[in-house]
């Protein structure tokens, strides 16, 4: 499969001189399900924000579906949808429906197309019955589904989840996992950053460890998982017992 994301020697230095990313070179295949794990401050979020041009490289390059992110950040943001860690900070609409329509409206689509995409996204995330509700009245899990719906309405080819399970209860985690798997089956490339492998590793086909802004390990989860603890990440409980990672959807 062709690579949809190509990162070449990516370095990012913050204004205070801290090196956030240090010479990252990485390719992600279209249709993959990649988990990027690492302790807090390892550079996971910094890396994700280079995929849609929210951060620009100090050195190196990032291309998404052949598009140079630095030169065409708007195009990159259409290709890469990002679900942020804090749902409240991401939701801008006054109602659930308005929130989902926000992205397609920014793309200047005609009203008929916007309404169609909103209906589909709400149906896909099970939020149709909440369309007129105000976002601050939703539960944590519903807010997370709403942010996903908002991204789905833009029909990205890559969906990036930044710590998607933070502050979610068990049903909320299952809903988010379910959405990830559905979109993956529909052909989206899924990238998830987390330090909690237990919830998602069973579904990933690739695992990347990061530490200090660098990639410490990259490969199939069963092979790489042995290095989890040394990278500041707890490996899934089942694997401590010599079993395969268990899905939270079973």
């Amino acid at each position: 499969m062709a690579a949809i994301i190509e990162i070449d020697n990516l370095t990012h230095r913050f204004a205070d001189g801290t090196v956030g990313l240090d010479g990252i070179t990485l390719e992600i295949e279209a249709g993959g399900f990649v988990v990027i794990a690492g302790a807090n401050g390892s550079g996971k979020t910094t890396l994700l924000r280079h995929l849609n041009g929210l951060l620009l490289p100090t050195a190196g390059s990032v291309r998404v579906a052949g598009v140079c992110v630095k030169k065409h950040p708007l195009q990159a943001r259409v290709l890469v949808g990002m679900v942020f860690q804090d749902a409240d900070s991401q939701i801008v609409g006054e109602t659930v429906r308005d929130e989902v329509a926000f992205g397609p409206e920014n793309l200047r689509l005609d009203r008929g197309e916007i309404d169609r995409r909103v209906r589909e996204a709400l149906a896909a995330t099970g939020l149709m019955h909440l369309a007129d509700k105000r976002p601050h009245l939703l539960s944590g899990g519903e807010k997370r589904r709403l942010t996903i719906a908002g991204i789905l309405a833009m029909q990205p080819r890559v969906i990036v989840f930044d710590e998607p399970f933070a502050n979610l209860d068990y049903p909320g985690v299952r809903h988010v996992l379910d959405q990830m798997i559905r979109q993956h089956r529909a052909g989206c490339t899924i990238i998830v950053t987390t330090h909690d492998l237990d919830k998602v590793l069973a579904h990933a086909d690739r695992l990347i460890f990061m530490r200090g802004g660098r990639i410490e390990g990259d490969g199939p989860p069963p092979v790489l998982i042995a290095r989890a603890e040394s990278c500041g990440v707890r490996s899934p409980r089942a694997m401590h017992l010599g079993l395969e990672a268990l899905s939270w959807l079973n």
Partner: protein
Amino acid sequence: MAELTAFAYRPGTSMLHRLDVRMKLALVAAASLIALQLGFSGLGPMALSLMVVAARCPRSLRIETSELRWIGLLLAFVFSARVLSADGTTVLSILALDITREGLRAGALVSLRLALVFLIGTLLMGTTRSSEIKTAVQWFLKPLPFVSAERVGTMLGLLVRFIPVIFEEVSQASDAQRARAVEYRRNPLQRAVKLGVPIMSRIFKRSDQLALAMEARCYSEFRTQPLLKAGFKDWAIFIPGCLWLATLLAV
């Protein structure tokens, strides 16, 4: 307080719900200004006509009792301030305060006017999505030079979205401080600073994150706007509405 039911939109199919939002805003603005000018002879008919309109969309006027208390307090404060500040024939003296007939009349007048304006506002907010209000405001601002109507519209939309979030932040910060016995601090200014600084910090951080999230979804001022279409039915309500308001003003 994050959920002020008095100003919450309630979906419906009443005449007010379906009225073109620009006409609704124009009528509301005119009615509010006229209400502030009316005497007792005009306030009665206006109140009656508003009750008739409200009766046709009753769900829009569902206000929690606890909020009525605050509204009542505000009106009582305005009434008292007016009563105690007007000169005239004294009808009652309490301690050093004289309550005059003219003061009572003026207090009743201003309180009634405010109550009507509140009722008009509640009818508007109960029957109109804030996104529609935003679009209508943009439409009105469009002809003005040097004013970015789209930017004003976005600011309005974000304000409506984030007022409940800000109240939540205040509530959380306040609870966290009370859990650490902040009430033992007697100095109210100190307590205000201890509360205000972390809240402002959190709000600004949220704003940064919000800006990033909007950028991530390709936000720009030039985006598809909701459709605004006024038909015969809208004009059939708007024109009689304007005539009625003009009549009230003439009376």
